[in-house]
């Protein structure tokens, strides 16, 4: 069954800004380059002398292979978590799909009519430079706040939600 009913019109489909994903995997990217730097260092200096016992190269090759397989797995895992973590704004609802881990997915749906206040926040150098930030949606329900974390153009997103809310209230 679809989260969005056929009568609804999708206004926004949001994900976190790609720069946030790159920031998340920065450590993994560094670990990806690290062995290359080490091999370059070993090749160009005589600081480390590897034993000529025959087994060392096999250990290095198999170790490097496993290392790269797992680093690649973690990078792609992070990507899919990023890709599946999203927010959808329709003309009737706000849907928050939070993919925390592979086996931990939370889908929350909020009626636009219950929205009381929308706040867009951009703070810090990176958020200002790449125009992304958080959008806080205050509601009257049990879950007091919906947060769109690190979405691109937060002011634009807030404007769309407020305009849609105005349209709903005028209809009523």
């Amino acid at each position: 069954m679809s989260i969005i009913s056929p009568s609804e019109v999708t206004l926004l489909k949001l994900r976190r800004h790609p720069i946030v994903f790159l920031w998340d995997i920065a450590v993994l990217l560094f670990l990806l380059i690290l062995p290359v730097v080490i091999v370059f260092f070993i090749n160009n200096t005589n600081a480390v002398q590897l034993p000529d016992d025959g087994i060392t190269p096999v250990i290095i090759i198999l170790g490097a292979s496993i290392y790269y397989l797992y680093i690649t797995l973690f990078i792609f895992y992070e990507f899919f978590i990023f890709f599946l973590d999203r927010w959808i704004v329709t003309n009737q609802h706000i849907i928050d799909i939070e993919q925390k881990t592979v086996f931990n997915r939370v889908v929350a749906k909020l009626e636009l009519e219950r929205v009381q206040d929308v706040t867009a926040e951009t703070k810090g150098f990176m958020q200002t430079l790449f125009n992304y930030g958080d959008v806080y949606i205050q509601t009257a329900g049990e879950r007091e706040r919906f947060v769109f974390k690190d979405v691109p153009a937060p002011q634009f997103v807030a404007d769309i939600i407020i305009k849609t809310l105005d349209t709903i209230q005028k209809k009523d």
Partner: protein
Amino acid sequence: MTSLLFSLYLILVAVWLIFSVIVVVFALRHHFFSVTNWVMIGLYAIISLQIFTVTASSLKKYTQSSTLLPFAKERTYEYHLTK
């Protein structure tokens, strides 16, 4: 010792394979018709195959030569032809 290392390697590859299948299945479960998803899965498969290919060729090179770090160090060969 080498066979023990290979066994350990195969166990770690098996664990990696199980996790990879889980990640790919869960990615496709929610967005089966997403082009981005399929592109990323394809990229993941290509990179993984490339890692296995490089590993195999490096091991093959090593078995043909006793030089240390056969995959890292460029070697030059000199051939002296005798009359």
